[in-house]
């Protein structure tokens, strides 16, 4: 599990209709700190915190600038020496979850 809620129930994951949007970036509203192998996150106006670990931390670090799904899959594939095909769905699920929780957002096409 890469995204861990530190309080409250774990939400269900819902994939969007288009799993390959143009680019993703960190949400400007996310308050965060990198602590060892984790990224701790808080959102203004919302109680509780999330903690990213493992591949989610790697994705967060790589999203220091906007990236496409392809770029993220390439990055993780190289980093974890894993075939692209075996991780692509997991990355899609992770991005959908991070987006749903407001930590990342899609960059409108032609921007970012």
């Amino acid at each position, binding site marked *: 599990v890469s995204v861990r809620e*530190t309080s409250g129930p774990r939400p269900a994951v819902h994939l969007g209709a288009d799993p390959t949007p143009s680019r993703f970036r960190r*949400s*400007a*509203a*996310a*308050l*965060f*700190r*990198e*602590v*060892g192998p*984790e990224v*701790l*996150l*808080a*959102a*203004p*106006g919302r109680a509780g*915190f999330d903690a990213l670990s493992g591949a989610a931390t790697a994705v967060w670090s790589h999203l220091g600038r906007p990236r496409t799904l392809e770029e993220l899959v390439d990055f993780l594939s190289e980093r974890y020496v894993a075939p692209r095909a075996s991780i692509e769905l997991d990355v899609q699920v992770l991005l959908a979850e991070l987006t749903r929780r407001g930590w990342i957002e899609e960059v409108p096409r032609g921007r970012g």
Partner: protein
Amino acid sequence: VGERSPLVSLTRRLASYGLAGASGFPLDVPEASTDGFLSALLAQRLTGLGMAAWEAGQLGLSQSGALLASQREVMFSVLGIERRLLRVVADFEEEGIDVLILKGPAVAHTLYPDPAWRPFGDIDLLVRTSDWEAACAVLERQGSARLVPEPRPGFDTRFGKGAEYRCPDGLEVDLHRTLVVGPFGLWLDPDELFLHSDTFLLGGRRLRRLEDTAIMLHACLHAILGPNPPLLMPLRDVAQAMASGSIDWNLLREWAVRWNLGPVLARAFGTVEEALEVPVPGEARSISMLESPRRARKALEASFTERAGGPAVATLRAIPGIRAKAAYARTLLFPGRAFLTSRSGVGERPSYVRRWLKPVRWLRGGTGGP
């Protein structure tokens, strides 16, 4: 900063991690000192620097897991404070109140290479004196409670530094109308600091802060006029600001002269050199050499001694005009009942007589602040 035990030396050395000229790295903490070292890092808010040094292979520590756990807890707290800060500032802005973020969040997000290096424990805000009452009202509407009541109506805006509030979630907001309590806080012009402001991004919002030069001024004041011995984090803030390359040394010198702050800055620069063992720039040395008025030197001395009423008497001297001095002295002697109650010990009946005995103790050479 305390005496030079091996533990103090280790902690001071870590406080200089990442600064140009810092020596003694990699730093190895003996097994027997590990618990004390970790406690000192927490007390001095140095867990972030500890983690950074450890991750860079510059800190040898047998219980790195404990350091990681401490930093994790501290950072959860910091994120909660930032969340509260955004709410407080939004409400201030809605009321048209100009507010500058001081210390922790502003320094962490602007001067340090990674905000995780700079933990903080509360929210410090500067508002104009003219906005003081409106700002207090905003905090009270949010459900925050003032920790110590105003001694007399009008005292805050005339003589006070600020007020501490506790929010419903337990976090504390230190609302300032000047940077420090006492004579130095009265001599400086806090409204002028609003002309030397900048911004930083937090949670997608642009918040106002002091410019780097004013941040360094505040860090010096906080380091020297705050807890004694000085805490290491404010000293590190001074060193971090110096290293930013964005200090307007001419402006700092002008403030030092015009606001009688020379002795405080000189002591801050000297303490940074002594405690962190890093060199300060020539411009700082030059400010340290400035001739200061006697009253500024005496005010600095007084801040280190409660004897003969130290800070209270120094503040009285700094207040211009006989009528204002009388008003200040009257408030010290006859504060409101609510203030008196808040300053009494647990189970102790509020008493003017006990309060009036303090000057007698001062004259006899005892201790006890106002």
